[in-house]
């Protein structure tokens, strides 16, 4: 197993929830995964608000990020579904389609002086933890703590489109739940588990009221199942659940939101101050 990865930061994690970054760095290190910074990387760029506008631009910026990792001789790991979608889809296309690569490289060469040769693999950290690190290694790091009832939220672009991602069954997935349970939590089934948080595809930016309605429906379903924490694997879903709850007046009891890296940080006995929980708008009182 290659255990050194270019750590792709993206935007929401380093700039809005840096606690996810510090947790990811520490948790992955403790599990024997070395992260190296991808200096000069940019936004992936986000699928909803760039792929929607111009797919050529979207792919060219993504290819530049892939080329940075290629030059460093590493594969990429990301803790964000949006970044994963953009980088995985772009690598999938460019690694297998020389014509598409040629087209993108014309732009890339002109803008950066380097080309992308199609050798980088893109990993999502949930899938990396499940497939490469393994559940036993995760269990061995757990220092005890509370067994919480968790609503696992996969988000959309971690597993889907499943014919390209090939990670787990898109309708009845288990890999993320298994990790949460390995961390000593109980993953609770809830109605319409697997539904979008509401934020994706540029919907949060353009029609925040519509996004909020979808989020509220998910929260209602989670609450009906008696969950104590929401666990996500994407800073954008994380943001949507975290900032939406204070806006929902008919939801007096809030549900704390943790990114999997923060949940693992807690379970592994990481210093609470290193989790960056104070920026969460939905108070984390766990």
């Amino acid at each position, binding site marked *: 197993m290659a255990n050194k990865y270019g750590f792709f*930061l993206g*935007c*929401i994690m*380093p*700039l*809005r929830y*840096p606690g996810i*970054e*510090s947790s990811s*760095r520490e948790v992955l290190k403790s599990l024997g995964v070395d992260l190296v910074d*991808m*200096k*000069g*990387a*940019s*936004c992936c*760029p*986000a*699928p*909803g*608000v*760039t792929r*929607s*506008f*111009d*797919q*050529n*631009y979207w792919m*060219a*910026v993504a290819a*530049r990020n892939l080329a940075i990792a290629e030059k460093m001789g590493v594969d990429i790991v990301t803790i964000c579904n949006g970044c994963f979608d953009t980088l995985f889809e772009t690598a999938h296309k460019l690694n297998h389609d020389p014509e598409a690569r040629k087209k993108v490289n014309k*732009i890339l060469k*002109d*803008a*950066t002086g380097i080309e992308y040769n199609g050798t980088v693999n893109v990993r999502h950290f949930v899938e990396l933890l499940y497939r490469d690190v393994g559940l036993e290694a995760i269990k061995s790091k757990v220092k005890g703590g509370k067994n919480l009832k968790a609503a696992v939220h996969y988000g*959309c*672009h971690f597993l*889907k*489109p*499943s014919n390209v991602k090939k990670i787990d069954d*898109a309708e009845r997935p288990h890999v993320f739940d298994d990790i949460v349970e390995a961390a000593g939590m109980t993953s609770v089934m809830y109605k319409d588990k697997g*539904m*979008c948080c*509401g934020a*994706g*595809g*540029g*919907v949060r*930016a*353009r*029609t925040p009221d*519509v*996004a909020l*309605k*979808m989020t509220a*429906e998910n929260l209602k379903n989670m609450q009906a199942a008696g969950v104590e924490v929401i666990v996500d694997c994407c800073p954008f879903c994380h943001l949507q659940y975290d900032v939406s709850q204070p806006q929902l007046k008919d939801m007096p009891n809030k549900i704390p939101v943790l990114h999997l890296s923060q949940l693992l940080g807690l379970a592994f006995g990481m210093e609470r*101050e*290193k989790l*960056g929980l*104070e920026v969460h708008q939905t108070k984390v009182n766990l």
Partner: protein
Amino acid sequence: MSNLAEAKEPNPEFTRKVVESGGKTVNLCFQCGTCTGSCPSGRQTAFRIRKVVRRAQLGFEEDVLPSDDLWLCTTCFTCYERCPRGVEIVDIVMALRNMAVKKGYMAEPHRKIAELVSKTGHLVTLREEDKALRAKLGLEPVPPTVLSDAKALEEVKKIAVLCGFDKLIIPGAK
């Protein structure tokens, strides 16, 4: 409800453009509605993704490109996963959105984010409070991205110019 006298002629030319822009499976759709039945956004609104696909299929360009519906899809891929005909619905939405943007249809909040990405390389800004929290967490106050590398940022900006992306996000578009 339109009657026969108002019925529009299909425009295969537009359908062909959708196919070429990435919506290659658009003609496989037989309008079963599994997509609409699976759509989380359609639960909350009058958005019907089946109708978007139908309009693309028939080439009803003027019904589909200026429409708000096109932007209510969260690209969650649920319909794409469940479609019994293998229609790559999200790819069709993306093709249509790209065509709409080329025609000047871009909502102001989207334009602002697109501008931020093309000019700063990130879709949110770095504020003083972010730097302070990063430092407190033991991280570099400025992330090791284009934010701390002027040459790298120039590269990203140049990609926007080479792709004509900078022209798509001029203020005052429809």
